[in-house]
């Protein structure tokens, strides 16, 4: 029973209090608090990977699957916090509260992953969202940041309302909020009855709200503004942790309680996925601001993930896991590179700020080259394998036309990644660019892993297969 004290959520929650307390007394030694934060993460990672006692709760899942995903989130946070720390301390915006709030958000994502009941899911989402509102508004002096925070807050509250509305409909007609109960009740509902239609409405409400949290089209309007308004380190966080968590929520919701009526939501998800890919690829073409560009790129990547969930096949499930892992790694790398580049001791904002980087910082130019080519899906980088496996599962499901649209969109999106490479390599320097002092070992490992994993793609393939085998799914 004591083992339960050592699940990552609890370790991190207790750790947060420690950090707040210690930071009170050591205001001038922020590095110590920062190391404490990282230590907490490492400890929780240790316990997440070594947990072997799994009690059976109805509403909260403790399993190998959830622990593996949590481990991925913790490792992601370690890297994000590293980028955040060096960026914030360089731009003199460092406050330890930033990390404690982020850790709260991390706990929120873990609750979302472990939730086996709709209310628990709602709790997790709210915990995450509240932390994100604070993080987005963190840059108090910038009006863009405040605007972004308000915007995200209003829209987020509305989407939470829609989620609750969907949950209450489902609860009203199935009499339960537990995933497993809903699944068995769904089987009994007659397809001609009113309940059936009501449940479908409930699912659509929930889907809409989750798509909003995911940042998928047509609920994507907030994404570019919020990405642009926040600090670059918040953007890194926004583009990785919540996405992974919402992705797992998608998997669990659709493959456990809603699996019975898959023919309803699979079309919706395929539509949302395709729309996200198309909008993400087309709108990114005209962006000058690098954060907005990466925001649209995130939208189109999310499209790939949702699309492969929507296929409702084992291949699709694996592809979505594969894509999510690769997407997180690539997003970390691309935002990571950008956090490291500065002009006049500010973070860069526009693509043209990076002009001529290859002449002054050839090493960083190579890192950008690798990340951008990987995002564009050019072999032999890992981004190619991720797109390949999604397209393969599309073709295995005989969706040839959709796969053609998808590949055409990858060609279009290749253009704006190439534009970045063009700016970095072929354009002449206008402003003074510098990179953050200190070493960039973690960044280098992050970026070079894109190449190494691309040459040995079976590593992530086996990982995603392993995760898929752990997934507590009913046969598809």
């Amino acid at each position, binding site marked *: 029973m004591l083992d339960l004290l050592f699940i990552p959520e609890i370790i991190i929650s207790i750790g947060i209090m420690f950090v707040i307390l210690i930071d009170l007394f050591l205001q001038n030694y922020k590095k110590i608090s920062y190391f404490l934060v990282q230590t907490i993460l490492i400890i929780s990672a240790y316990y997440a990977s070594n947990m072997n006692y799994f009690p059976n709760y109805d509403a909260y899942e403790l399993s190998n699957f959830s622990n593996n995903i949590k481990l991925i989130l913790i490792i992601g946070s370690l890297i994000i916090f590293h980028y955040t720390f060096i960026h914030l301390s360089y731009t003199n915006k460092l406050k330890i509260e930033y990390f404690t709030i982020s850790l709260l958000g991390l706990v929120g994502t873990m609750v979302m992953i472990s939730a086996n009941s709709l209310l628990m899911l709602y709790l997790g989402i709210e915990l995450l969202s509240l932390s994100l509102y604070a993080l987005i508004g963190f840059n108090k002096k910038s009006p863009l940041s405040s605007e972004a925070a308000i915007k995200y807050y209003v829209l987020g509250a509305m989407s939470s309302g829609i989620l609750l509305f969907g949950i209450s409909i489902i609860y009203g007609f199935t009499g339960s909020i537990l995933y497993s109960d809903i699944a068995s009740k769904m089987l009994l509902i007659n397809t001609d009855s009113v309940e059936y239609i009501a449940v479908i409405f409930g699912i659509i409400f929930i889907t809409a709200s989750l798509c909003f949290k995911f940042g998928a089209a047509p609920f994507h309007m907030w994404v570019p503004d919020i990405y642009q308004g926040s600090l670059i380190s918040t953007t890194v966080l926004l583009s990785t942790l919540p996405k992974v968590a919402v992705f797992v929520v998608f998997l669990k919701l659709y493959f456990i309680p809603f699996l019975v009526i898959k023919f309803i939501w699979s079309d919706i998800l395929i539509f949302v996925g395709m729309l996200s890919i198309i909008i993400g690829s087309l709108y990114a073409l005209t962006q000058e601001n690098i954060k907005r560009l990466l925001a649209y790129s995130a939208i189109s990547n999310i499209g790939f993930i949702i699309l492969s969930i929507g296929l409702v096949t084992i291949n699709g499930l694996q592809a979505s896991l594969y894509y999510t892992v690769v997407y997180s790694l690539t997003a970390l790398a691309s935002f990571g590179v950008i956090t490291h580049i500065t002009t006049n001791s500010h973070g860069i904002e526009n693509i043209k700020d990076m002009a001529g980087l290859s002449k002054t910082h*050839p090493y960083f130019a190579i890192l950008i080259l690798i990340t951008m080519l990987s995002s564009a899906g050019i072999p032999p980088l890992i981004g190619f394998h991720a797109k390949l496996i999604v*397209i*393969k599962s599309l073709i295995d499901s005989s969706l040839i036309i959709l796969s053609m649209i998808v*590949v055409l969109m*990858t060609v279009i999106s*290749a253009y704006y990644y190439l534009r970045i*490479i*063009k700016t970095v390599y072929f354009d002449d320097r206008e402003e003074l660019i510098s990179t953050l002092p200190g070493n960039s070992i973690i960044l280098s490992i992050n970026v070079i892993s894109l190449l190494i994993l691309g040459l040995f793609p*079976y590593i992530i393939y086996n990982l995603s297969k392993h995760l898929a085998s752990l997934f507590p799914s009913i046969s598809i």
Partner: protein
Amino acid sequence: MSSYPILSIMIWLPIVIGLILISNKNISKLSASFITLFTAITIFIFSILLFKLYDYSSSELQFIEKYEWIEGLNIFYFLAVDGISVSLIILTAFINVLIAIFASSEDYDNKSGYLGYFLILEGLLMGTFSAFDSILFYIFFESLLIPLFLIIGIWGGTNRKYATIKFFLYTLFGSVLMLISILYLAKLAGSFEIKEFYSLSLTFQEEVLILLAFLIGFGIKIPMWPVHTWLPDAHVEAPTSGSVILASVLLKVGGYGMIRFILPITTEAGIYLSDYLIYLSLVAIVYISFVAYAQEDMKKLIAYSSVAHMGFVTLGIFLVFNLMGSNSSAAIIGLEGSIIQMISHGLISAALFFCIGIIYKHSKSRLIKDNYGVAQFMPIFSFIMIFFLMANSGLPGTSGFVGEFLVITSALGSNFIIALLAASSLILSASYSLKIGKNVLFGQNKDNIQSYSECKKNEKIVLSILIIIILYLGITPDILFKLIDQTVIDIITSASIGYI
């Protein structure tokens, strides 16, 4: 024989050394040139070894290296060679040696990076020509874009940004459609091996769509009319060695892919569409020759001439569809002609781009009107260049003649009009080749201010090696025939078995 991973060495050695050259900026220009030359020669020796050990009495795949790469997806690291692969691998290794020699006297910023990208390109090309797993092939095929993109973009001319992005997107567009066909074929065959695709029985509609997808993919690479427009831009902006590798080897990837994929897999659709495919090739040969004649820029002229000459390659390939049932010996001649045309064009276009590079270095202009009367100042160079221009127009005795002659002979077996139009190229190519010769080499130098001087020693070495090889292959092309004969027969029989 197959115990040594000779193909893997030929792929990965240049890539690794190239990466070292790129990532290390402290290497001096001299040592970078030396390392590159040494690597290129090593690879060339390996390719000669490959040629010597290759058993050309058999059409079986040789030097097989096959390991499981991505377990669950059935994707293999599967390298092997047949006669066509060997001939193109030798061409690649050979051209890279010449580039290494030629570039040793050139001066660029960050030269070790420049040479490093060429080595990476060489390794990837080796991979493209020896991959027999379709996904592995695709990966090498598409990775080729990256080093060339950077070579043109970083070291290219004034309009390089436009040219590189156009080139990249054009070829990427072509190849993604191809990827879909590969995945579709793999779904039906349950395997990604190219040879497994040959025995698939596809419906007619599937075949037509797959043929079109491959045609767009490889047609852009070759390039065929009307998707050739990226090539002149890319050539004009590329540095000399970039143009050389682009014209002499990268274009051949398209022809190679057609022989490897379109001929054996989509035979039925090919026979149905063969007339249209042949028309496309004839347009490339005749119309593009006129376009070439109208060019003012030497590099553009040679670029268009490349399109026209590659028209022969596609013509030879597509004639196979036309002749397969009725006259299979003519089909064999046509396909062999198109392969020899690929090799020969690889040598001749490389030579011409080297020559233009030398002229450009002196006058800083590629326009014909800015370069008059080079022969007054560079008599030896002018003699050499006139030889290459003659070879370009298919003079008997040079390798340029052999391929075109075979394709025209094969066309006679199909239709007299096709043969006539194809043969008109001999006159048209002579006219635009001689246009350069007349004006640039022997024109009247009005102002006499051009400071041409005879070419350097390493340039002379490159050009004389090319002369020897072009003459040698022109006089005794047997060596090539022997190499590709069995493979060609094998491809045509496997295609016709699938058809019947």
